[in-house]
């Protein structure tokens, strides 16, 4: 049986057509998994570029055009996934989904701290990956239509349509997920946003969203936007419920 051309399958079945075909960089050292994922993701309508090692991935990322999403296995020979993740983050906000065989809390957290936007654990199929990718791309192509173009949070200016955050005139570099998280909180205008709502609005998760994903992103966001991340005044925890955006006049506690 010859390998079917993924694009022709996609065309045959009239799959939900994205405006442009998204390109994925699949970094995976196991050839069989890489092959199967390439087939299945291709079947879902994506352009899949493969890399077997961290070095190959970084080489590929040095060239334009960049992929839309990176699927990154954490266990790689040579430069490991965490390192690759951190290097990609140094370059910019390219969306990263880590694909991991590890579920120990600290390993997942390490990956998220290194800058991943989301994570899935093996075994994973193309359907689930597709859902995560779509959520990320939706995020990446931000710009809700019914939002004001700019919002103020204390000394922060959130340019919603541009996807930028400024403190005074200095831009704060946020990943697209961090930006979306901030936007979701700011547009609630001081109301509490529950963890469930955040997981759903930012990551498209139903009830199986992992709190660690949210926790790490809140931590990352605070490091970037809070004057003192240890004493957050912009993104305030509402114990047991969720988070709330505040203008940042430090409350006398």
């Amino acid at each position, binding site marked *: 049986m010859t390998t*079917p051309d993924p694009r022709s*399958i996609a065309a045959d*079945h009239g799959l939900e057509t994205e405006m442009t075909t998204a390109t994925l960089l699949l970094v995976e050292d*196991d050839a*069989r*998994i890489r*092959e*199967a*994922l390439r*087939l*299945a*993701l291709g*079947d879902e309508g994506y352009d899949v570029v493969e890399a077997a090692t961290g070095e190959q991935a970084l080489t590929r990322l040095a060239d334009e055009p960049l992929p839309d999403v990176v699927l990154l296995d954490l266990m790689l020979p040579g430069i490991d996934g965490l390192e690759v993740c951190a290097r990609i983050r140094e370059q910019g906000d390219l969306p990263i989904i880590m694909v991991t*065989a590890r*579920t*120990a*809390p*600290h390993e997942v957290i390490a990956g998220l701290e290194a800058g991943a936007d989301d994570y899935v654990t*093996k*075994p*994973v*199929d*193309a*359907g689930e990956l597709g859902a995560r990718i779509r959520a990320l791309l939706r995020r990446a192509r931000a710009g809700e239509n019914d939002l004001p173009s700019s919002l103020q949070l204390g000394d922060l200016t959130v340019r919603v349509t541009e996807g930028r955050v400024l403190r005074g005139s200095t831009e704060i570099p946020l990943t697209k997920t961090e930006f979306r998280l901030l936007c979701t909180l700011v547009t609630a205008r001081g109301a509490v946003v*529950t*963890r*469930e709502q955040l997981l759903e609005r930012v990551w498209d998760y*139903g*009830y*199986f969203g*992992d*709190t*660690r994903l949210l926790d790490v992103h809140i931590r990352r966001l605070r490091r970037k936007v809070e004057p003192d991340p240890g004493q957050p005044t912009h993104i305030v925890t509402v*114990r*047991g*419920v969720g988070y709330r955006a505040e203008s940042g006049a430090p409350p006398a506690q």
Partner: protein
Amino acid sequence: MAWFSLVSLVVAGVLALATWHLSTGYMLDQRERSAIRQAKGNARLVTQVLERGSAGLDELLTGLVAEVESAVLLVDQGDLIVGGNSVDPTRLPTAFLDMVRNGRPAHQRTVLNGIPVQAVGLPLPAKAATYVEVSPMREMDRTFRFLSWLLIGGTLVSGLAGAVLGRWAATHSLRPLRQVTDAAAEAARGDLSVRLPATGDPDLIPLAAAFNDTAERLQQRVARDTRFAGDVSHELRSPLTTMLNAMSVLHRRSAELPAGTRQAVELLNTDLRRFRRMVDDLLEISRGDQDQDYSTFELVDLAGLVQATGPTLPESVLDIEARPWVLADRRRLERVVANLLDNAGRHGGGLVRLGVLTREDRARIEVDDAGPGVPEEAREHIFERFARGSPARREATDSGAGLGLALVTQHVRRHHGHAWVEARPGGGARFVVELPEVTD
């Protein structure tokens, strides 16, 4: 406890009876001897007076009465001379009097005018007379009454003390044994981490040591087995990922396949998904067994979590009676609720009610289904690993991996809670998860 008090009551009663018999017997005996001795002495005096002629006899008798505080009777050739005030010696039993008159000394205890007395009769053969002395035993009677009260009281007190002691023994001295019983029951419920605390009771030290040793070995063995299952599942991840993705290509194109092949692909697809769920659950179970990380525990609004877990449920099914706070690992608790909902849908004929409530400082989740309920004898069994419904129901295309409820038990135990199933009033099963409520 009842036995304890009964036994001590019987023992005390027997002792009291024996005491009564011995002491009253001894005292009566002494009293009798002294009465006889006294009567003999007095009889001699009376004989001497009679030998000298009857002058001074009245005087002597009055004197004797005053001295011994007793009535004295002298029968001399048909004459009756009575001295004394408190008792009437003529009312003595005739058999006794006849015996003395016939020349034989006699003594008898009897009651005269309501007063217990000791009567001693001595024939005076020289004078063909009879001397009878009757001494009342008021003192002795009082003593006996006092003694009887003392013994009855003592017996009752001892019975009561026995009851108290029994109670104390049951609650205090048997406490270590009850600990053993509780620990064994806890282990039987599946918590192999129970250990008995060090005890100072030399009788219990070997028992506690043996119990702890057994529990330790069992726990290690279970941990080894689980680790093995976890390792195997971990190794299965890679081939499973390959299979799942290859299958998703095949499945998408199944419409193009010939009917027979399509059926085969469907079969394969269904079981591959079940296989995958099993591996996921096994990994989760083996992880939970080893995971000592409690840093993910936080304050959680239980009702909010339950509502978020079943967002598509109709309003009529949700029954939020209270909004308790619990200390929980959100992900695990969501998994608990999801598995119970899944179970209700898969085995219970559909969800009827999803309740959140509090009962005595415990927060509760109740999941009611419309199924046939769980028979009493299977209620513990279904929470075990790889326990599944009846063989008939196992025939169904997808009956789950059989780990869902085991995961519920494991996760709930991690939250220091309990999970069980009971009959729902009105039919069907009610799965209950109880967690410690956090109150400020």
